């Protein structure tokens, strides 16, 4: 570590002496998310996307980027400690990642105090909007996404009787609430709602209740693990309703776990591997070649976050050496950074605007749903 710094400094000095005056910075990204435990998938995928971005940025030359990854194990207590660790480490310039809103919320006060900018990619709780001038995210909030799905379900798909299921935490409750409100406003009827604990395996009895209410659609506000099981157990009970779910279900594992039961399930996401545009083409090929699988939305968001960071660093570097403060200011000034989930601009509350794709599971793969809003 020390040797690299000395080497970098020497290179820096050497370059300073040269007429081009290009400063090569080493940007250290403190990456933290749940990398072990039940929901490691989100964090691991974000990391993969970020790795690709870092590789691309490093190849571009100029600044070097490295990632210091720490697992928060999905525990808020760890999150706070890790935040402190990053704060205390003078090399860390920016923090990225975060799988769970509750952990991000616990860590934010620490970052606020040490003025370290955060760019999160998977935390969607509305409570994180406007929470700190140092916190931003490139993923849409649940309030926005849930409402979009509610509109889609009632208006575009014309569903009338919807049963709402949600996981019992920030995420599930928030997205279910946004969905229900939007759907009801558009004329659909919520015939029932129940919550389940994250990690539940057995939904038979819950679904027996659902069956009795005879809904034409079931909205599952939760992660792919439960969405797959709910779908399977529902079909086994003879329930024929349309399944709707969230970006938490947008994961290739959904089909592996749910098999034929999830056919026809509609979810939303900020990225679809099937939609190959020129912007996403190279990302897709590189990702597939490196990781031998299709990228998920989380990987895409991780990648875009990396790209946004690259843009911010370049912007900040124009005014001198890149510091935490200058990087934070640069983030605020970014406009339409190109990325695979669309252009990224951060608003004053730290959120970004964006569009959602509605994706349907067809023949074991995600594809654009036939009806889009």
């Amino acid at each position: 570590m020390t040797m690299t710094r000395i080497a970098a400094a020497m290179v820096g000095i050497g370059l300073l002496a040269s007429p081009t005056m290009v400063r090569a910075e080493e940007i250290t990204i403190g990456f933290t998310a749940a990398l072990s435990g039940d929901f490691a998938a989100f964090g691991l995928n974000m990391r993969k996307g970020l790795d690709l971005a870092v590789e691309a940025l490093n190849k571009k030359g100029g600044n070097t980027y490295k990632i210091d990854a720490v697992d928060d194990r999905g525990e808020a207590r760890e999150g706070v400690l890790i935040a402190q660790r990053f704060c205390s480490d003078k090399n860390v310039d920016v923090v990225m990642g975060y799988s769970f809103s509750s952990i991000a919320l616990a860590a934010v006060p620490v970052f606020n105090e040490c003025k370290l900018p955060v760019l999160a990619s998977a935390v969607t709780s509305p409570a994180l909007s406007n929470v700190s001038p140092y916190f931003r995210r490139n993923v849409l909030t649940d309030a926005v996404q849930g409402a979009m799905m509610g509109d889609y379900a009632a208006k575009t798909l014309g569903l009338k009787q919807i049963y709402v299921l949600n996981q019992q935490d920030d995420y599930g409750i928030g997205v279910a609430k946004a969905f229900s409100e939007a759907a009801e406003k558009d004329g659909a009827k919520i015939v029932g709602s129940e919550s389940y604990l994250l990690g539940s395996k057995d939904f038979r009895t819950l679904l027996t209740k659902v069956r009795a209410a005879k809904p034409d659609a079931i909205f599952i506000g939760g992660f792919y693990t439960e969405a797959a099981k709910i779908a399977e157990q529902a079909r086994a009970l003879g329930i024929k309703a349309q399944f709707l779910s969230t970006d938490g279900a947008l994961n290739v594992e959904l089909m592996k776990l749910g098999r034929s039961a999830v056919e026809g399930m509609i979810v939303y996401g900020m990225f679809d591997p099937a939609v190959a545009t020129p912007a996403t083409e190279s990302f897709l090929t590189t990702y597939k070649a490196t990781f031998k699988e299709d990228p998920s939305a989380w990987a895409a968001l991780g990648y875009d976050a990396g790209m946004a960071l690259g843009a911010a660093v370049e912007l900040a570097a124009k005014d001198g050496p890149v510091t935490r403060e200058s990087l934070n200011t640069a983030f605020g000034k970014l406009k339409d950074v190109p990325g695979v989930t669309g252009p990224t601009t951060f608003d004053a509350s730290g959120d970004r605007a964006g569009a959602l794709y509605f994706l349907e599971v067809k023949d074991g793969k995600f594809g654009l749903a036939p009806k889009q809003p």
Partner: protein
Amino acid sequence: MDYLGQLLANGLVLGAIYALAAVAFTLVYGVVRLVNFAFGELFMLGAFLTASLMLPEVRLLGMIVPMPGFSLPVAALGAIVLTGALGVLVDRIAYRPLRNAPRLAPLITSIAVSVVLQSLAQTIWGAEELRFPEFHLATLPPVVLFDSIYLSVMDLVVMATALAAMLGLSAFIARSSLGRAMRASAEDQMAATLVGIPVNRVVAAAFAIGSGFAALAGLLYAQTYGFAHSNMGFLPGLKALTAAVLGGIGSIPGAALGGLILGLVEALGAGYLPNGTAWKDAISFVLLVGLLYLRPQGLLGKPELNSAGRGSLLGGASEFGAAWLRAGFAKVDGLLAKSAAAGPRAALVLLALAVLVGLLVPSDYWLRILTMVVIYGMLASGLNVIVGFAGLLDLGFVAFWAVGSYLTSILFVLVLKDQFGVAPADIWWLLYLNLPLAGLLAAGFAVILGTPTLRLRGDYLAIMTLGFGEIVRVVAINWMDLTNGPMGIRGIPAPNLFGIALGSPRAQFFFALALAVLVVFAIARLVRSYVGRAWVAIREDEEAAEAMGVPTARYKLYAYAASGFVGGFVGVFYAHSQQYISPLNFSLFENILLLMLVVLGGLGTFVGPFVGALIWIVFLQLALDLPFVQAYPETRFALLGVVLIVLMVFRPQGLAASARVALTMPGARPGALPGARAGRAKEAA
């Protein structure tokens, strides 16, 4: 009617699996009197092994490994055999050396084995779920009864298999000579040895069969719900325990009955209670606790199983260990005994050292870590009062901690800030009031929880307290209006004194240190008096204590109250230090962790809890710098498990055990050492 019918059908399928699991659990308990906490992991491994053998290839340790791709029955057989062998291996390494050890040792070891197996599974198969491969029978359309009750073909297969397995086992136990030998060993191991039964081999056979059955239950469960996952065994393990206790632990038909009843109760409860699915698990625990209170021997069990050994839960030296190891421990013991003799002076020196560390350590990060050490040390000290001194294995201590944290958080945030708009800075003094208040509330709570446990002993006491702890956790998760549920309570203000903010890591460390001094001081005063003597007497020989005039029931409640007070007291500081709490902070794992810390350091000493806390938390952080740990973070827990197993075999009394606490008041001896506080030792980081 079709609603009820479907619920009953659901309950029967679940019940069949629980029954099978409970039977496996009770078989081992009956023969070895061991509550095998690792049971859930054997269950889990059965699922993983079967799935792996059925797939054409599987990802192990990050690499794709080709697999035979057997059909379900063949793969199942392979998994059962392999898991059975693993069970025998675990017994040989971890349980057999502790056959004659005090009660707590095999329990701790089984918990440690559970942690190791779970971490290993996660390392090998990954953290994500593994889809259970489809068996051709599963693709058949569901069977529909009465036009509305849906049962899949595999459900029927699962029920039939479970039934066949249980009947087969009963016949085996009743008729075969090995079965007879098992029953004899279950009755009286000593007598069985004397008549020539090779008890060790019989025990190994029991483990083989029990583990094999656990694997069978696990793979049937995985087949029913469609997946395998490294932590899938935890709750089913507890349910198997509940079902076994329900039916009467040690009784095989009882376990089957218990499993069936549990499955039906869960299905019906979830189906008829409002928001029943979320409360489902609480139902099993309420059933467990109620049953232990009213009829500890369960439906078909024998009353004499409600008895405990006498004496410290973990006492005495181990019989094992190479000469150099013993010599090493002897040196450590000598040193500790000397420092214990130096008494209060040593304590003051160490306190000064801690203060110095707090002043000189520059890194905020390390200060936060050390604050954690102090917090965990205090909590472990509280647990030590009831487990170490009074000898009551309380696995629900974490509930008292939670009461303290939630009291202060609810008051500060949910009530005063959200409802009345009072800024935390204006009521900074409430924190100091909350400290003793929460202590008293938690103490009261502890007495309420402790009262039904009074007539229980040993393992039953542990299980009942575990049930209570879990009920409290489920309530905290689901009673959203009171606790904000899984989202927890945020924005708890940092401590403040007359306007001086004490939120910085350094200030918090000193605050924690000050509280620790108070806590240890109070505990020491209580223990070094007739109260402490009464507690240790109860632990060592309850009947003799009674004969000496000690009202043991009352004093047990005092022990609950004292440990509860500490839990609540520390909980207040914890909340203000973390500034965010959620029910996940107070899980069973935390309780187990605290127990392990106390065991690690040494039960029944003042030093022990802090030694344990220091070692664990520092290790946890240092390990993060190893790249292997960064890639596989769960291996830290596997390592803790291994350390504990090694400790149980070679040094069950804990590392600092010889820092023995004198149970007389300092200064009350004729010509005694100068009176001062009792010692508390803490090493600098």
